């Protein structure tokens, strides 16, 4: 039997954080149900806790996908510790547990970001002029790769030539998002938070800091289109499933190489 375990951060205060994990799990059961006997959710701050989730899984073949954007404290420290993982594959209690990397570095992420932007602009009046896509990351001084993932996706999107400009801004590190949005030289600015879930920042601090009035804010010299976080987009379900598939193949190839060179 095969199981997919999706790990989310979760929250003690509201359902914003866990909701996308539950929704993506439901989509995977529906659309990729043939691949997995079980699709299970677990969290850091909610139940089921990571500590106990593997006992609830019946399958012996388990893939763990963290619903996190970047490599860092959670994916490298907290999740392996709480799940008792020893590396890319862990054998424990009769189970083989594969551990996938975070979602933000995965190839398909750029497509989900672009889909989110397309959905946002659909049915909206876009005035003539240059179009900029601005990716908003959390960023933090503690974790360099948190910003790196955002730049990586910006580069991938730039290569496709769909926008006149692709820029990057952060909440907690430079360049600050407010400055980026203000200085970007485009009449139409599409702002997409590269976050996993809605929360206090996406609902309150960001709109407040940037003076946004909703999905569309028309300023004197530009219009700002503000999208929902990329992590809540329905296509993230397919991304999670693809991430799991790729991890299984990678690890199987490594195992085979290791076996054949023995």
């Amino acid at each position, binding site marked *: 039997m095969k199981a997919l375990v999706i790990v989310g951060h979760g929250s003690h*205060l509201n359902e914003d954080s866990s909701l996308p994990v*539950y929704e993506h799990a*439901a989509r995977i059961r529906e659309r990729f149900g043939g*691949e997995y006997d079980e699709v299970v959710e677990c969290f850091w*701050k*909610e139940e089921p806790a990571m500590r*106990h989730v593997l006992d609830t899984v019946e399958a012996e073949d388990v893939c763990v996908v963290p619903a996190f954007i970047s490599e860092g404290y959670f994916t490298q420290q907290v999740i392996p510790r709480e799940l008792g993982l020893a590396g890319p594959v862990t054998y424990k209690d009769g189970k*083989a547990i594969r551990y996938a990397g975070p979602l933000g570095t995965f190839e398909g992420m750029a497509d989900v970001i672009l889909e989110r932007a397309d959905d946002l602009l659909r049915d909206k009046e876009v005035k003539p002029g240059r179009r900029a896509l601005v990716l908003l990351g959390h960023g933090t001084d503690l974790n360099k790769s948190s910003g790196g993932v955002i730049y990586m996706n910006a580069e991938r999107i730039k290569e496709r030539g769909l926008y006149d400009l692709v820029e990057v801004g952060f909440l907690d590190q430079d360049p600050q998002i407010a400055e980026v949005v203000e200085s970007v030289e485009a009449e139409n600015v599409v702002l997409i938070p590269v976050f996993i879930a809605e929360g206090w920042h996406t609902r309150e601090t960001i709109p407040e800091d940037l003076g946004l009035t909703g999905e569309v804010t028309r300023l004197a010299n530009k219009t700002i289109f503000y999208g929902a976080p990329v992590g809540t987009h329905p296509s993230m379900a397919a991304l999670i499933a693809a991430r799991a598939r790729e991890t299984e193949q990678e690890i199987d190839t490594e195992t085979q190489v290791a076996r054949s060179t023995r």
Partner: protein
Amino acid sequence: MPEAPAKPSGLPDTPPNVAAASREAFAAWVDEEPQGRAFGQVLVRPVPLAGYHLCHIDDAGSVDLEIHDDPRAAREIAKLTGEGEYRPLKSSPNLRRGWALRLNGVPGLAVAMNYLYPAGIIHWYLHREGRLEITDYRENAARQSGIYKRIQRLSDEGVQDAARACCEDAVCLKKTLWNVDSGTPLEMDRGNGHIPCPEPCSIFVSFARRVRLFEREKKRDLDAAGLSPSEKEDLVALVETAASGAGKLDFAREAEFEKPLNERRLRYRRLTLIPKLHPAQAADNPNE
């Protein structure tokens, strides 16, 4: 479908499957009792030839319930209280009423139970089998990192008070099985329910962090009357709300331990502040 990676030698080939065994054992335990079993606040009744009927224990006789056939509907049922508040701890005694789940088999029963009481039937089963691994507070604290690392410094007395304030049946229906450490048992009413708690949960860890902040503050900043700044903050908030709220206290949310009018926080004050304010009363009621 890719083949599972080779197992290192030495692992048993047919390990006991806890998930499957607990599901079957739970169903058998329910089947033995035609009137149904209470598990947390859920009444689980066997329905011959049909499966299982689940509802809130206080709705046992109600006919006017919103019926669901999908076991995954249990997630929505468990999400908010009757008043619409988010429930971060599913074992809090605040499961909403008015619903029923009609499940046609054991797998569906396990899915629903796992949303109502995550990992509950697994822990119930392992405990019954004498195989539930217990992780005491000190061991759990030693593992913490980041902002929770400081719970390592919480005193034994602080752990005891935090557990009484956070884990008793009035606020959590699990039976607290862990201790401060192997030589220091918790001195509290551990609860009467069927759902064991093998390890401090994330709500407890967050509460312990707050209690540790209170502890530090006590040593540093007591005023002439012996009150700490946060104790005064709580007293002010209580007086203010009681005086202006026309009899309605507006409590903080369940896990908002940084706010004065949080139930667990005030339960902790009852244990630590009332004896200070009223030594005689505390001596009369050592457990209050």
